[in-house]
């Protein structure tokens, strides 16, 4: 009898997902501008794989297919994964990563709403561990590339139809990677960042993409699809951490702004760590979670074996979510703490 409230204001889950994808569009445009249209092919590949894997799993699990395909969550996971990969990668890499993300990290845990780990980051981590060489070789931005790559060239590379095109000819180490290897060779940060792949703040060309992520993130905030807690805590703690090290020794530790504008910092701050399903729900918990990711990311970047650490940090902090939520319960009205 009593089904109140009779009113509802919320956008549906599908609308939320669509808006998040909309917020990714500027970054995708920047990708095309900087690295060429190959990223669009990668996005399409990931999308098709994600939808097919999702449909297959829903069928196997005897769940209604249409409402869950339409919720857009699989598509968003596919996009986030594709945008985390090098913008030019063999097709099977995209397919394997997406398949793993959807089937293992999402559906086997119970599908939408039940995955304890960020599916895109699970897919990314699996690929990084399994194929470290491909995963750490990014194509050079078009303006720096020795051989200009046409779309045909990019397609050939993605689908592996020519053997003549070598990875080394078109790729170069990412700034984070370069910084790490050069530091071990006892160069100072100032010498290293003089290399051509470094731009004003982060990576040459990559900065533009990072700026586009920031723009999309602000749109998410304006639309109240995310709260300020996660991006603010993540970016500020990362900057504080990098700043402290930078102040102690500027020749061995990069400028805080460099850490904010390279790697997956900005993508992570607004699009990855804000995944609601695998993250904490309390306001304080969000601060703790994001700060933890920032600290781990910095430590992995500086002391770890991989150039960037966002994916691993997110997965590690995902494990702490139940604990964080339990510890950060807000004070209930009329209760003492």
């Amino acid at each position, binding site marked *: 009898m009593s089904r109140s409230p*009779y009113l509802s204001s919320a956008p549906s889950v599908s609308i939320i997902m669509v808006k998040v994808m909309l917020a990714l569009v500027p970054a995708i445009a920047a990708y095309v501008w900087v690295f060429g249209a190959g990223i669009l092919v990668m996005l399409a590949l990931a999308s098709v794989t994600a939808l097919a894997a999702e449909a297959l799993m829903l069928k196997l699990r005897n769940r209604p297919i249409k409402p869950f395909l339409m919720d857009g969550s699989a598509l968003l996971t596919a996009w986030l994964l594709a945008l985390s990969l090098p913008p030019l990668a063999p097709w099977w890499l995209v397919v394997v990563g997406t398949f793993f993300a959807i089937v293992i990290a999402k559906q086997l845990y119970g599908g939408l709403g039940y995955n304890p780990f960020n599916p895109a980051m699970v897919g990314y981590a699996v690929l990084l561990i399994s194929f470290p060489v491909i995963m750490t070789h990014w194509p050079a931005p078009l303006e720096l590339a020795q051989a200009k790559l046409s779309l045909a060239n990019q397609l050939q590379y993605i689908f592996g139809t020519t053997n003549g095109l070598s990875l080394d000819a078109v790729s170069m180490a990412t700034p984070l990677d370069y910084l790490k290897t050069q530091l071990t060779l006892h160069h100072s940060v100032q010498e290293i960042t003089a290399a051509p792949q470094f731009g004003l703040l982060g990576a040459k060309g990559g900065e533009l993409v990072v700026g586009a992520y920031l723009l999309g993130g602000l749109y998410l905030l304006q639309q109240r699809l995310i709260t300020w807690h996660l991006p603010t805590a993540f970016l500020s703690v990362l900057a504080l951490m990098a700043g402290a090290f930078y102040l102690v020794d500027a020749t061995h530790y990069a400028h805080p702004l460099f850490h904010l504008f390279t790697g997956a910092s900005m993508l992570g701050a607004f699009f990855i760590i804000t995944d609601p399903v695998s993250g904490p729900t309390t306001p304080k918990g969000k601060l703790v979670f994001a700060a933890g990711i920032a600290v781990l990311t910095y430590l992995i970047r500086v002391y770890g074996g991989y150039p960037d650490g966002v994916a691993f940090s997110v997965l590690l902090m995902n494990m702490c979510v139940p604990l964080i939520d339990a510890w950060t319960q807000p004070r209930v009205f009329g209760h003492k703490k």
Partner: protein
Amino acid sequence: MNALINIVKQGLGLGSVAVNGGVHPPEHKQESTTQAIGQLPLPKRLVLPLRQHVGNLPKVLVAVGDKVLKGQLLAEAEGNISAAIHAPTSGTIAAIEDALIPHPSGLPDRCITIAVDGKDEWIALAPSDWRKEDKTKLLESLRNSGIVGLGGAAFPTQVKLRTNAKSHVDTLVINAAECEPYITCDDMLMRERADQILKGVEIAQYLLGAKECLIGIEDNKPEAAEAMRLACAISPLSKLVTLKVVVVPTQYPSGDARQLIRLLTGIEVPADKRSTDVGLQCFNVATVLALHRYFDFGEPALSRIVTITGNVKTPANFEVLFGTPITDLVKAGGGALEDTNDYIMGGPMMGFSLPSVDVPITKAANCIIASAPNLFAPAPPAMPCIRCARCADVCPVSLQPQELYWFSKSSNLEKARDYNLFDCIECGCCTYACPSNIPLVQYYRFAKSEIIAQDRAKEAADLARERNEFRLMRIEREKQERAEKHAQKAVGAKAEAAKTESAPATEASDDASIAAKKAAIAAAIERAKVQKAAAVPQNVADAKPAVQAEIAEIDARREAAKQAVSELAGDNTPSTQDKK
């Protein structure tokens, strides 16, 4: 201190103290505020449910066939928390029976039906000069005023006006927030009868001894706020105590008593206490007006203002006698439009669908909304929770609805209780904000009722266990007592025996009785033997002579054997007797 913080905050332009959460659903209040409060024609019948309030059922004082006058007491308050029922107009008691009432359960309950005679004839009214009367006497008379909280909670008002040494009230809060969409009965009441409301405030202030009266109104009712301000300015009360109209931002659910108290005073009433424990009491505007009518005119609670809105031709407010069928009200609102498929009592956030449109208006009925699919679309199928925490963001009591949902769904009731399920005020903000369309409030209602049922079952089990333990203890005790008694008796008997040894007369009579018993037993054995011999086995009756002879031979042998056995037994008898 809190008042000071408030002043500082208001000085800084922060307005009142912001509360956590809350939502802003479309208000839809203009529709029903275009006309003055109307009067309904007298209905033919009034059906008065006995349970129109929180607390005990009142005791019925009339019988079927009785003539009653307007204002006559039909049922008196029973016990501490209860409210009386009066005849809203004159007529005859037509029935006292179970009938459908406006309740979400859709179950019938006891009702008094009055066949209205149309004369609307009053009883002799007894107004009181309350300023000169003793407070305890006034409160005693209030017991049978029938006044309950008219904001929707329907808690007997006399209980809330009682004060004692433990709970003294400094601040009287008048709730005029009316935060639910669609409802405008308090708004219209304030616009038209602000002076009468203030007279009611005077009475409440007098009874409670409050030093401050704050009237909280949401800023979407400027006309009402203005009318109240004017009434305050000319009220004699303004010379006695601080009397203020406080306009608060429009936000659902600011009209919740504890939320409003927080907004107006900055005081957060502790969850495990009543507001009176921290010197506050809160009444709805219509409730204090009812106090004025009762004390100044002697009129008990007979009617209220009800909003009829939604899918009707001319949404408006009407003064409606309790017991009036809702169909009459709908008619007065110009009738329901064609696609009306449901009627909601209360607002769209906390109201409920009526089991039928024929049920009567009760004291809690502030608003009737004719509902249609285009007005309130049926909720789309629920999707899984994505933990977006929008529900937590809008929860006015800072609960974690997503966790409570998880625990309720998995029947992890202990956990739900740990996460303060019982602090949930069921305002519906969480459901309103849920992108997955999960009916969260329903889950909480279910979990609450389950926990209450479990607690009751546990209490019953505890009681049963205690009883059983007591029973076992009692049995044990009785056994011991018996044993003791026996022991005492045995001691006593021995002493007796020692005393009576030299009394052969009794012994002789004992022997005689034993002999008589033995004779009786012997006679019985004899009878049995005769019966046994007489009973010839049926299956051998028509056997051949040779077989007959054989049987006779066997019988003889058996008899001989028996003889031998009994002789042996006879030999043994003395030894068994020795053992004895």
